[in-house]
């Protein structure tokens, strides 16, 4: 069986990153924006793992980094969702366009 070349993998991760960025800029629902950020972070995870496996298999740096990124992404999502719930209580909406009290 032939091995999948690294460029294919990199294509997936890069595409995922920019899909996430596109989603972050175009979506108006806060939860969806959070999901878009999650996509970007996961593309980073894929990057770390494939670089580790294909280029530097003798050390585990990339894998370790991935574990930390996953953990911190979870913490970040927890705080973000708590903030969004609190915002929903006062604004009755989670659309970013509705949250515009701070514009002068």
């Amino acid at each position, binding site marked *: 069986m032939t091995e999948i070349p690294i460029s294919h993998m990199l294509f997936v991760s890069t595409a995922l990153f920019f899909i996430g960025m596109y989603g972050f800029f175009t979506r108006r629902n806060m939860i969806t924006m959070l999901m878009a950020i999650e996509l970007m972070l996961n593309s980073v995870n894929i990057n770390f793992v494939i670089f580790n496996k294909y280029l530097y298999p003798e050390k585990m740096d*990339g894998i370790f980094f991935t574990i*930390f990124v996953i953990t911190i992404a979870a913490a970040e999502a927890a705080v973000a969702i708590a903030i969004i719930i609190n915002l929903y209580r006062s604004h009755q909406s989670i659309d*970013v366009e509705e949250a515009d*009290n*701070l514009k002068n």
Partner: protein
Amino acid sequence: MTDQLIDFFLLMKSELLLLAVIFIMLFMNITAKENADGTPVDNNHSILVTANILLLLNFLAGFFMNTSGNLFGDSFTSTELTAFQKNILNLGTLLVSLQSYTWLKTHKHVMEFYMLLLATLLGMFLMISSQHMLLFYLGLELSTIPLAALVNFDLEKKKSAEAAMKMIMMSAFSSALLLFGISLFYGTMGTLHFQEIPAALNGSDLQLYCLILLIAAFGFKISAVPFHFWTADVYEGAPVPVTSYLSVISKGSILFVMTTVLYNVFAGMGVEWYLIICVLAVATMITGNIFAVRQQNLKRLLAFSSIAQVGFILVGMSGQNTEGAVSVTYFIIIYIFSNLAALGVISVVSALTGKEKISDYKGFYKTNPMLSWILAIALFSLAGIPPTSGFFGKFFLLLAGAGNGNYTLVIIAALNMIVSLYYYLKIVKAVFMDANEEPIPTINLAFFPKAGLLICLIGIIVTGLASGSYNYIQELFASL
């Protein structure tokens, strides 16, 4: 074995002391007596006194027993310089804590405030000491995620919730950019150790792309233009003490790290990042000033003025010599004193009267002469008028910037300083000259905010006139 253990404790002294403070306060929270309705018995006074004393002790302990060395497979370093930088942040946190007394006195969740605040400080300490991208990333996240919760600390306020939402979205986005940059760096170099990166830099296009992503992530955190959109909203929506913490301590710590990373780790790509920093500096100064001129809300004005100040700091950073690093550190100390004095006055007024507009401050001098003078001196220092220390800070920044021979940049910076005088003096004029039918009533300051403001005032005057302070920082950098 014992020697190693003692070494370990001494090297991680600042972090461990801070952890001790956090745990002491956590246990106080458990044992605190409460009324039937859940409010503390004596209106938070004893908690606040203990917190401030602990922070003061923490700051004083930062002067002693500082040793140099590395830990955790060389991914954590402690030197005289990092100890000094951490202690600057300690002092700033103490000042913020002193000034938040008026606001926290009646607040229900005072303990949570300190937990979150000190957790972010711990993150900054780790970040300053980090010698590995992983530790750097962990410190960065530890210093931003709790901050978003702090911004939302007035839970019932609509603006607070909105500001927190913007902050967490922006910080998550910027850390995603940072991580993407780091992951590609890992791909090109196979190491993320700060000491091994310089040898592995080859200046390829991919590495340049990573560097741009990295600087963009830094730009988000220090709110350099064009990554500044969240700043004004977050500063306006957050409670004032949190605003001061964000604009001074959080920004200062990132600038410390940014200087170290750019000067030591990416010295090999100096030509590339020099250009980026120059563009950022010009855009940041001009945009910050233009927007600050239009503002009517005092917090928003100071938010944009703090963006402009970052522009000046970037001018110093573009110097690419030891003076650049020294002047950035020196200016951050001065900036901590000046901005905390200005925001401290606003914090007290906002906590007691809820007024934050410039027009509300008309006739402020008639009713509160002492606070007016502090506000005026702080604003003069921010504008950079001698003999306040702000002048010396800006002078050294521009001198460092000129050291690289880019005089256009220095001239633009000097012109921007003149523009910034307009909006700072606009506040001073409202405070001292304009008449007002209903001025802000006379404020009786409690002991803690008064002490905090006086320390800031002394700092503003002494840091500039005592030239030893600049030389001391220079020696610290030379000893590396």
